[in-house]
């Protein structure tokens, strides 16, 4: 773990849900499974609310349908990879 203050910025970027189902059902579980591969803390931020990317109930409670924008924010040793991988997953439309 890096010391506090060494790193002022965490990794974050904004994505838009393109797939029909949104972040429900299978896409939601795919998302959580992918997020759980990384050590970093990963949060999704939508309309100022934060959601735990590694929690299926948290992700589902976002209720994010098609066309919704949100921020993926990661903090930790593999933050860059985590954000990139999740972005690709969302942009691929979860294979729908």
């Amino acid at each position, binding site marked *: 773990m890096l010391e506090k203050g060494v790193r002022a910025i965490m990794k974050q970027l904004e994505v838009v849900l393109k797939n029909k189902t949104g972040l*429900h059902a299978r896409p939601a*579980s795919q998302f*959580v499974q992918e997020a759980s591969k990384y050590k970093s803390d990963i949060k999704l931020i939508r309309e100022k609310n934060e959601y735990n990317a*590694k929690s*299926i*109930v948290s992700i589902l409670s976002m209720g994010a349908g098609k066309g919704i924008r949100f921020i993926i924010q990661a903090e930790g040793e593999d933050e860059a990879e985590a954000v990139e991988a999740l972005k690709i997953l969302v942009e691929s439309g979860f294979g729908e």
Partner: protein
Amino acid sequence: MKGIGVSPGIAVGKAILHKNKETEIYKKEIKDIEKEIEKLKNALSESKDQIKELYEKTKNEVGEDEAEIFRAHMMILDDPEIFGKAEKKIYEMKVNAEWALKEVSNMFVEIFRNMDNEYMRERAADIIDVTGRVINNLMGSKSGNLFIPEEGGIIVAKDLTPSDTAQMDKEKILGLITEEGGKTSHSAIMARSLEIPAVVGTGKEIESIRSGDILAFDGDEGTIHINPAQETLRSCMDKKEDYETLKNKLKSFIGKKSRTKDGYEVEISANIGTPDDMDSVLKHDAEGIGLYRTEFLYMDRDTLPTEDEQFEAYKKVAEKMEGKPVIIRTLDVGGDKDLPYLNLPNEENPFLGYRAIRICLDQTDIFKTQLRAIVRASAYGDIKLMFPMISGMEELKKAKKILKTVKEELVNEHIYFNENMKVGMMIEIPSAAIMSDIFAKEVDFFSIGTNDLIQYTTAVDRGNKDIAHLYNKFHPAVLRLIKIVVENGHKEGIQVGMCGESAGDPDMIPLLIGMGLDELSMSPVTILKARQIISELKMKEMEKKAQQAANCFM
């Protein structure tokens, strides 16, 4: 006690209550925090093993799709928000694990229950299910899984969802009683297709049944005896025997034509939901499939079925029917049938809303995929295509145009299919019935869907128990519409069938014969009974009777 008899037969057996009452959980202060956390972890791993077992069992006994729900449950079990928060509560508040978990579970359940999306509300049930299992394990009580003893039993439940029934050992179910539901609810349809006697919609009285009570009931008439006296029990057993004798008598109608005394013939076919229903179809000697409800292919899953998946299902049914007609109805969801992954809007009047062909003509990708699968399967039997919920000519024309495009694509891809596949429509909306003279020039057949036709014609919600007495299939207006449709169809020389619940109703069949329907499609179990009824009728007399019924105003 009385309910609505929805699946015939006499059942006698012990009551098995589905879903135990919620156990009371008290807040307790604890001293050894580490020990409490340890307890929670053990309960989690025990739960994980149980769910894994259920997953394997369902996968082997029913199928992979049906087992999918337990994978979702395993994910909830791994959820850091639920169990992390519960752990935190134990640490910070020094409380017992069951109480901490119940609190966190309640919080999430509340969130999901308040979402205006059917799919999300179902997730609340999943959270209750999973956390309830962990709490049971924490308290050392038996889990909520339904155990049916070797000698079988009668399931007593509030209502059953498709995933409930998927988990049950269906061979051991002697009967089914539910508090909610009507003739067309999932429990009722399932009971009929499995040939299990069932009574639904008993109301709150069902709560007086205790586990292990001896129950005896008639799935036709709907009266339920709880711990009956020796005499009543004996008479029920006698009735059960009579019923089984009759069942054997009906077997003598296998292989015979469906013909009245004076030689008028009709085709009796079967309504099915999945290729799994084919055993029952063949056993009861259906002369065709009058309604293949394709929506079951789309249900209980997270994504749309692929073209190939659908093609295989349609082909399988067509091949098993060996050249007998198979009417495949395109996707009919919306109304009371939700597909969570389509994110259908929550509507004020779902039955008058975004459903069936209306969805298909809007989301044409979904429609085209299905049409391709059906057209491809037409090479393997006598498949006919049917559009549901047509209310006006424009919809029919649009649907046919898309079908034409799909056929052209398949020709270009050199994929073989039956170019003369018949195309028909359901008549289930009064506007379509009234315009049936025009529609008859545009399609190869009609099939009357009575469930919707009755509710739209008489403005009676068929699921509303308070007005169930107004839902009347013998309403003269409905009978008149049916008559109009038959006459208009016959004027253009096309076949007119019926695939709603009315088609298999013993009291309705004489009238339908009298009105001249060419085909009646019903639940497979009622086919032989219908054939027997028809064999005792005379067309001439039934014509008169139908005429009278259409003019009968009470």
